[in-house]
């Protein structure tokens, strides 16, 4: 049971972190470098999951995506599939809750890059994407990596929104935090402790290794 929760968590965190990194970076770039109406409003909306209790975020998600939901109903009518109670739901809940951390860190990092370097790249005839990948991103790298680490850690610990949207089904959607919740509430203190220690070790190791890695790379680049 501990092993199956670990496997579900690993899958969920991997998928959530990949989506969060790519999507978060794109959104951070748009927010940092584009002037448009409603920019700060968009930022505020995307930040909401950071402020709301996760159960409320989960409730919004299930209202939106459940079989009777605004988006969920047409999806179900069309494909006969619903995201509720699937591992994809756990990944989505983790993504939504982790995304603001990625956006905040990456936006600040991109904004701290002097626009003159990007301008120089444009003058040399490089396109926007190439400039972003070869000039902006390397200069903003430390903030971006920090964002990825923070959002992966948040995804690993996600509980409330996941419980609501993905349910707590052992072997299918039961992540490590859900397994801890179940063990605590049903009085299995031993198992709860084992799981809690395992989750703590995994988190500390992941954050520590990533920090080290990014420091080493930064030192190399400097």
């Amino acid at each position, binding site marked *: 049971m501990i092993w199956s929760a670990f496997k579900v968590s690993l899958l969920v965190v991997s998928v959530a972190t990949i989506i969060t990194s790519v999507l978060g970076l794109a959104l951070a770039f748009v927010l940092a470098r584009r002037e448009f109406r409603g920019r700060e409003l968009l930022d505020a909306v995307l930040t909401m999951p950071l402020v709301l209790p996760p*159960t409320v975020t989960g*409730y919004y998600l*299930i*209202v939106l995506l*459940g*079989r*009777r*939901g605004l988006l*969920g109903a047409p999806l179900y009518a069309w494909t006969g599939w*619903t995201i*509720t*109670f699937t591992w994809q739901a756990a990944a989505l809940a983790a993504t939504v809750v982790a995304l603001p951390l990625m956006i905040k860190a990456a936006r600040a990092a991109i904004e701290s890059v002097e626009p003159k370097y990007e301008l120089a790249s444009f003058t040399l005839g490089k396109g926007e994407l190439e400039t972003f990948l070869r000039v902006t991103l390397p200069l903003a790298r430390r903030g971006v990596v920090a964002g990825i680490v923070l959002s992966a850690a948040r995804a690993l610990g996600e509980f409330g929104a996941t*419980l*609501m949207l993905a*349910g*707590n*089904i*052992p072997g*299918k959607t039961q992540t490590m935090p859900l397994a801890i919740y*179940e063990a*605590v*509430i*049903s*009085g299995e203190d031993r198992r709860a402790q084992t799981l809690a220690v395992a989750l703590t070790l995994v988190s500390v190791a992941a954050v520590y290794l990533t920090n080290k890695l990014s420091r080493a790379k930064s030192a190399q680049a400097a």
Partner: protein
Amino acid sequence: MPTNNGAAKVPNEITVSAAVSLKDAFIEIGQLYETRTGIHVNFNFAASGILQKQIEQAAPVDVFASAGERQMDELANKNLIFTDTRRDFAGNTLVLILPRSQATTQELQWFERLAQSPVRKIAIGNPQTVPAGFYARQTLVNLNLWDKVQQKLVLAEDVRQVLDYVARAEVDAGFVYVTDIAPTNQAVFVAAPAPETTHDSILYPIAVVKDSRHAEAALGFIALVLSPEGQAVLKKYGFISVLFGEG
């Protein structure tokens, strides 16, 4: 009654949303069901209120087993369960517990003692959200103790929290279900059951969910829970059987 759809084939699995307090008993009944029918049971264990919200949003659930009548009533009002499949399948006993260190044998008037000064804090589940807290309040009101103890109450978010406060002697007394106390729990002492006449009957309802695509298999699961074998499992974990009367 779910319509008997002749074309419906036997499913590979069904999903049962059950109150987390039923976990051990239901896992055992689920294994029985799987052996009998070859249909795997996915259990979704959480607080009854969360399970209710999921069903309201058409989560793919076949059977709902609630720790409180209220959650089932609300689903029935929204026409989300087959009301003719609804049964009360188990009962529970509310008990007054004390930290083991404060257990004394000569004192018998446990409930009256709650109002006296040595008892400074009493933990109950939040009556608004925790069924056990709701029954605890009824008992205290009916014993004419509510006004006297209200200042001493510590409201917990679930029964587990009440149990922890008492076990750690953070409070001087608490109300939980007898099934919440593990046989190995050495830290709490069961002083007395709350008199049955002081609160509504504590019953666990079960029903087939309207959105179920495997209503026949779901009904089979409920039948097993209500069968002598299912009831024996529940009894083993401290629940009151609805078949044999008081257990």
